[in-house]
């Protein structure tokens, strides 16, 4: 596994197979939080952090414990518990470090647990089956790369969307379309744009 493959994995997860727009993971927070750019920023950092760490821990958990014990089917429970615990840790950490941020994030912080993007990336890393072609260490690094790429992709799209959303809310839109419906159409157009990146690497 060369550096080229590693960086391809990052770019691929970030842009070519964008986590939100092309793989449909993390859409709920995507639509819910992206109303203001500052809370969007705080949210993305938190999600990115949990995504990368959770992927790493789940990957190791799967290959070092579940597979040798032949209980791979416990995957879902194990992963979600890892994520829930991580979110608890992050919550405690933020509470101690910055009460302001904790307050502004409010209920969205524990809701990170139910962010399909985090569990989705963790499960996808297993499903991609890197170990069929690489050693465990290389596969692990590849999975970290994918998680980092996915996290960056999530942050990128969230941020761009928040900026668009701010303008949308100020615009004159027919009442039935106001809010989420028109945002979804915008998301669809963004998805079309990202589709154009397919086949670059």
């Amino acid at each position, binding site marked *: 596994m060369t550096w080229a493959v590693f960086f391809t994995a990052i770019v691929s997860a970030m842009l070519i197979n964008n986590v939100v727009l092309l793989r449909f993971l993390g859409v709920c927070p995507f639509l819910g939080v992206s109303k203001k750019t500052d809370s969007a920023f705080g949210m993305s950092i938190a999600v990115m952090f949990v995504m990368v760490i959770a992927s790493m821990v789940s990957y190791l958990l799967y290959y070092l414990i579940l597979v040798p014990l032949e209980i791979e089917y416990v995957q879902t429970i194990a992963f979600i518990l890892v994520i829930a615990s991580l979110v608890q840790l992050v919550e405690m950490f933020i509470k101690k470090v910055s009460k302001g941020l904790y307050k502004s994030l409010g209920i969205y912080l524990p809701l990170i647990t139910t962010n399909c993007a985090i569990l989705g990336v963790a499960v996808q890393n297993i499903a991609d089956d890197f170990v069929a072609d690489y050693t465990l260490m290389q596969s692990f690094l590849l999975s970290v790369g994918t998680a980092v790429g996915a996290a960056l992709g999530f942050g990128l799209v969230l941020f761009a969307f928040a900026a668009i959303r701010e303008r949308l809310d100020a615009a004159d839109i027919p009442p039935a379309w106001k809010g989420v419906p028109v945002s979804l159409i915008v998301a669809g157009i963004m*998805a079309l744009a990202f589709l154009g990146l397919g086949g670059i690497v």
Partner: protein
Amino acid sequence: MAEKTIPKKTIKSKKKELGQLATLTKGFIRENPVFVYLLGLCPALAVTRTLETGFGMGLLVIFVLVMSNIVVSLIRNFIPTEVKIPSYIVIISTFVTIVGLVTEAYLEALHASLGIFIPLIVVNCLILARAESFASKNKVFSSVVDGLGMGLGFTFALMLIGLTREFLATGAIAYGEYFPIGVKGSLINFDTYVFKMGVFDGPAGGFIVIGLWLAVFSAIQLHRQNKAEIAKQKMIEEKKRIALERKRMKESAGEQA
């Protein structure tokens, strides 16, 4: 003028009878989990390329929702508040794992098509929300009905989106591809469908179709709200008029006396 007093008792019992039926059907339009509460959007986007896959996912969600509602309702008095959420998560993920294994064994084609979205049922906010807000506070039977109602509504939403996308993209509604019912075919089949738009098969189309249906449901809601507003206004006008009438009658009675 004597006002008719409607006996309060009748209202209450009538409400209870309709209660269960209303719970079952409320999920379709009035409280549709996808279009009104915006829950479960990830699977709504990902598995609705065809009607059949949307239906399949809906079935799985109904199972998990109902089963976890039952369990949560059964042990609702025994779970300490501190470990509420983690326990719910464990219960839900148990049923998700079970449903995943069963699908992998007996509905292989559906399993391959739904892919990672089967384990992702565990983070479908709909299920956790119902467990937290309803099943933990109600008896088992009501919880079952609630779960069924919401689940059916979810399935309805998914089927609606899937129907639209599949029709716009291919001009045909296929069945039998993912469920081994022995027959394969199409409900409608416009071979000469000129306006086939492949974009609805892909991610962009998913967003757009959901946006469209959301706008429709939003319009329905707004319409209802408008109606309620108008009815309220009318009632206020009516009350004012009655009060004015009474006043005039009092005055005229006073004059006569």
